[in-house]
């Protein structure tokens, strides 16, 4: 007999980074190795979880042994598993990169105390954030979701302020307030749900939820709050300063992972728990905002003169795609494809954006600035980083075989089969605009360098360059391992409910 029953693996992705975070705060020495060990252990546990999931299907875990209406349930379904996997893989990349980043700064720049301090606090905050994200993906209780959301906001805001420069602190302050506002709005929604049904468990809510004024209000409030956190246009105002002014690994975390958390909740609530009370108008409205985000974000990205800001605005634009998916779910028989599409886009964007911010950060550190105008020929001295950036860019444009392409293809298919033309045009326009802002930078990076401009800058350690390439390539090849993902998504009873009779 084993010492613990196998379902306990579901809490491992929460507990492992949590312990790591606490240890990193306590120990202070060799924190990188703690973090690395933790991220590997986390990957291991997620893989084990994946195996169990494939064997037994969706899992449900009663925290503290208490049954659902009273206790808190964790649940593992396909999308959550994929998010865990995504976080685990990106997390390893970020952990490695952060080490390279900080060690370079500590060794290369003056005021190294400040950088040491940043690194020292980065690790516990990052591991805590990781805990929070994993907890968020696994949570099966709307109030617990609120707690995890707060956990995410607090650690993310603290990370965003880590760089210490005034702009980042103002941005972090605003970020914190906005997240808080979002969480409060969500909490009020929870209050309304509790008022109406007296239940907090998601599964049970799904069974008993019926359209009504209470639910509608609750849903509106939760949606508003989560949209604010996910930075859907025009609620994106806080995102660019916060993401652009943070340290590079932090930007990667914020753009690559954190926004996905709130989006994940939103999507779950809309299409799983309260699917019955969603009206077509609401879907269209969200889709419209998403289209606005794609266009506006891309145009802004095209206009930017600084690399990090460009990447940030592209986040705004890419998030828009996720919302364009909303109205496409209106047709019954294609909603599964839309689920798949969204999962793909989320994952691809996460990997690609993480890689992109890492590359931008390395370029910034090595060259000393990130004015796009003056980046000609960086490829010569930072080939790996440049390739990472370019490959990540290919992902954002959505060229095959990247994960972004699979997502766009599925969305386009959904739009065209359901006869909702306009969305497909936005998607196409978005990728064209994306190619403009991606190539604006890439063509400079890959120019034959002018000897006068380029100084010989060699990266300090391979950790500064390789993680970005690694993640970018994963994003690029995501499309090729698509069958496994759809396998995971299809073992989800939720998806089966959404699309009866669906399946490969």
């Amino acid at each position, binding site marked *: 007999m084993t010492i613990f029953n196998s379902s306990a693996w579901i809490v491992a992705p929460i507990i492992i980074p949590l312990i790591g975070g606490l240890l990193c705060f306590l120990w202070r020495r060799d924190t990188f190795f703690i973090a690395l060990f933790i991220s590997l252990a986390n990957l291991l546990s997620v893989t084990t979880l994946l195996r169990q999931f494939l064997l037994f299907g969706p899992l449900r875990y009663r925290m503290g042994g208490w049954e659902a209406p009273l206790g808190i349930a964790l649940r593992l379904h396909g999308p959550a598993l994929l998010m865990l996997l995504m976080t685990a893989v990106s997390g390893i990349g970020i952990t490695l990169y952060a080490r390279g980043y900080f060690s370079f700064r500590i060794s290369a720049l003056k005021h190294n105390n400040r950088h040491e301090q940043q690194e020292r606090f980065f690790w516990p905050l990052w591991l805590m954030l990781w805990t929070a994200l994993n907890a968020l993906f696994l949570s099966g209780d709307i109030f617990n979701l609120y707690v995890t959301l707060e956990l995410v906001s607090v650690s993310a805001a603290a990370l965003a302020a880590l760089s210490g420069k005034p702009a980042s602190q*103002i941005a972090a*302050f605003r970020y914190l307030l906005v997240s808080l506002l979002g969480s409060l709005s969500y909490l009020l929604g929870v209050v309304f749900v509790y008022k109406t049904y007296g239940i907090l468990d998601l599964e049970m809510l799904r069974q008993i939820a019926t359209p009504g004024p209470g639910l509608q209000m609750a849903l509106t409030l939760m949606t508003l709050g989560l949209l604010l956190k996910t930075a859907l246009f025009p609620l994106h105002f806080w995102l660019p300063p916060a993401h652009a002014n943070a340290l590079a690994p932090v930007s990667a975390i914020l753009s690559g992972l954190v926004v996905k958390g709130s989006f994940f909740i939103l999507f779950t609530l809309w299409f799983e728990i309260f699917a019955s009370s969603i009206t077509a108008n609401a879907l269209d409205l969200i889709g419209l905002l998403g289209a606005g985000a794609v266009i506006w974000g891309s145009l802004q990205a095209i206009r930017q003169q600084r690399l990090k800001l460009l990447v940030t605005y592209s986040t705004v634009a890419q998030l828009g795609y996720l919302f364009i998916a909303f109205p496409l779910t209106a047709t019954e028989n294609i909603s599964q494809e839309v689920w798949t599409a969204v999962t793909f886009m989320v994952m691809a964007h996460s990997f690609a954006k993480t890689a992109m911010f890492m590359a931008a950060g390395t370029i910034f550190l090595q060259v000393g600035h990130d004015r796009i105008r003056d980046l000609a020929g960086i490829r010569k001295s930072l080939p790996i980083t440049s390739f990472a950036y370019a490959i990540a860019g290919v992902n954002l444009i959505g060229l095959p075989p990247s994960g972004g392409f699979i997502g766009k293809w599925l969305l386009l298919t959904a739009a065209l089969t359901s006869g909702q033309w306009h969305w497909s045009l936005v998607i196409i326009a978005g990728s064209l605009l994306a190619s403009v802002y991606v190539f604006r930078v890439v063509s400079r990076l890959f120019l034959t360098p002018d000897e006068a401009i380029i100084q010989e800058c060699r990266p300090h350690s391979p950790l500064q360059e390789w993680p970005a390439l690694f993640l970018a390539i994963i994003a690029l090849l995501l499309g090729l391992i698509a069958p496994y993902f759809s396998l995971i998504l299809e073992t989800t009873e939720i998806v089966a409910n959404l699309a009866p009779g669906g399946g490969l």
Partner: protein
Amino acid sequence: MLTNNLYNLCGLLLFGMGLFALFACSHLLRKILAVNIMSSGVFLVLIATAYRPLGAGEIDPVPHAMVLTGIVVSVSVTALALILACRVQETSNHSLSQSERNTNDGDSEE
């Protein structure tokens, strides 16, 4: 039922007031206060919903626990926000005055 509704109303009004103030005020501290007022409002709605007059049955303890959690969360967030606000003030080169008019912190919520 009247009491519940009364306090509910109060909570919602507090929420609305805080929301407006969060957007309208530019002083960082005032924004933090506004958020705190908002959260108080939310808590009030929750607790008021659970309220039963004496003798009218058990009071549901779950909302109480939720509010307790919420209060602790809001205290921690407030503390962090305050320190951040201080840092912003310290690093931005502006004279610090009590009046809101003089704070130029670049923070606006639109």
